[in-house]
């Protein structure tokens, strides 16, 4: 009889522990999704700004058809991206086409002085900054989620109830002007 009671107590403890772990994992996964949606909002904002930008540039440099079309194409591809992998590639593509667009604008002083163009440029760089911030937060959250589902004993719960590793979101930065900082000193 005492053995049975002891066994039951142990089983109940294990079940309670399993429930708590499961809930913790669900909470973490929610945080990952939420962090991703923050990136998504900023990506959409970026995509929304581009048609305006292209229109403005067209007014001054309509014959730079190739560059403008590349930007539009990259933007459309970025809007269609589904997986994180696709997003990564498409956004990097968009960044590089935008870079050549802004490089091109250097040759048009009237365009550079255009109020609307300046505002769009600030808006776009602001949005890219926000993407970088949101990406950092997302990666922080993914980092802690991935670490958690790999740790014993949570990994048992994780693997048996379909918690899989989430991907980091990496993006090339527009320009490498900030010195690299080493935190591990």
């Amino acid at each position, binding site marked *: 009889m005492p053995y049975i009671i002891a066994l039951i107590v142990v089983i109940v403890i294990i079940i309670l522990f399993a429930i708590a772990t499961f809930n913790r994992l669900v909470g973490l996964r929610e945080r990952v999704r939420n962090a991703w949606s923050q990136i998504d909002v900023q990506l959409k904002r970026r995509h929304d700004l581009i048609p305006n930008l292209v229109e403005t540039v067209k007014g001054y440099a309509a014959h730079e058809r190739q560059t403008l079309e590349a930007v539009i194409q990259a933007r459309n591809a970025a809007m269609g991206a589904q997986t994180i992998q696709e997003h990564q590639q498409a956004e990097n593509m968009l960044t590089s086409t935008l870079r050549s667009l802004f490089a091109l604008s250097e040759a048009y002083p009237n365009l550079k002085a255009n109020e609307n163009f300046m505002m769009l*440029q600030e808006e776009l760089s602001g949005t890219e*900054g926000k993407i970088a911030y949101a990406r*950092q937060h997302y990666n922080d959250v993914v980092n802690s989620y991935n670490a958690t589902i790999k740790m014993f004993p949570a990994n048992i719960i994780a693997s048996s109830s379909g918690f899989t590793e989430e991907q*980091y979101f990496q993006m090339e930065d*527009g320009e*490498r002007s900030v010195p*690299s900082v080493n935190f591990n000193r």
Partner: protein
Amino acid sequence: MNDSFNPEPQSARLIDPRETYQPPPKLGTPWIFEDQIAANRRGTFLLMIVFSMFLVIIVWAVSYIYHQNAYMLAFVAAVVAFFTSFFSFYNSDKIVLSMSGAVEATKEEYPHLINTLEGLTLAAGMRGVPKAYIIFDSAPNAFATGRDPEHAAVAVTTGLLEKLNRYQLEGVLAHELSHVANRDILLSTVAAVMVGTIVLLSDWVLRSMWYGGGRRRRSDRDGGGAGAILLIIALIAVILSPIIAKLLQLALSRRREYLADAHAISLTRYPDGLAGALETIANDHEPLEVANKATAHLYIANPLQEYKGWLNSLFSTHPPIEERVARLRRM
């Protein structure tokens, strides 16, 4: 457009200069604000109680000196103190902002400030962006206020915008945002209003005793040893109140600054930004005109003129900037 930031490349903010993701730097404290939030809530509650008791004691002491109905007045004071606490919980941010002459910054006028603030909010994973306020003063300084992130405000001086570059400004905003995220702002803002009230009140009592009360009190004194002792206690309470108020602020302020510096770096991943900003602020010897003793502890660096010396460092609301910079450079 009077957006007068230092000329910097018009590129996106580069938080993580490498292509691969780096986890946040290891801090001495866990990368979770929950403990601190709870501690700050408790602290605020405690502060309200202490403040109320203090107000009651002062009123009682004064009315005793003047031979008024001390218990009746003390009761009135208790009621007043309760409502003051309640009121300052909900309105202290507005009081502090208007005390400092801050006006709300619009996105049209300060696009970069607003963008950076919104970005850092994303990096912190916070909901709701604090409002940005501008103080028209050439001394570089900043503070945050409000009772929770949804009702928070970050105020910066025009001097700060002029004298710092983008990365330094980002560091300062990240520092202020950490104060917002871990609810330091609740405690420190309520403290600002209450300390202001206490100092004002005791000032007023001392002065009225000095000029008006003295003679009258002596002429119709009813004497007795117990009465004299109570009178002395009353006097001590009035004299000590500003000192106690000061000590209260100190307890709130110093360790928090280090903590907020560390949290700021986990948002920007760029210690040199904040370190450079602190140095710029320290080397600027202009006092901030809108700051006073009650609001000094809110700012990122002490806005009042500092006099060096051990007694002063004992009563300083901020840790020395050199020490803060040294800690940042070590990260």
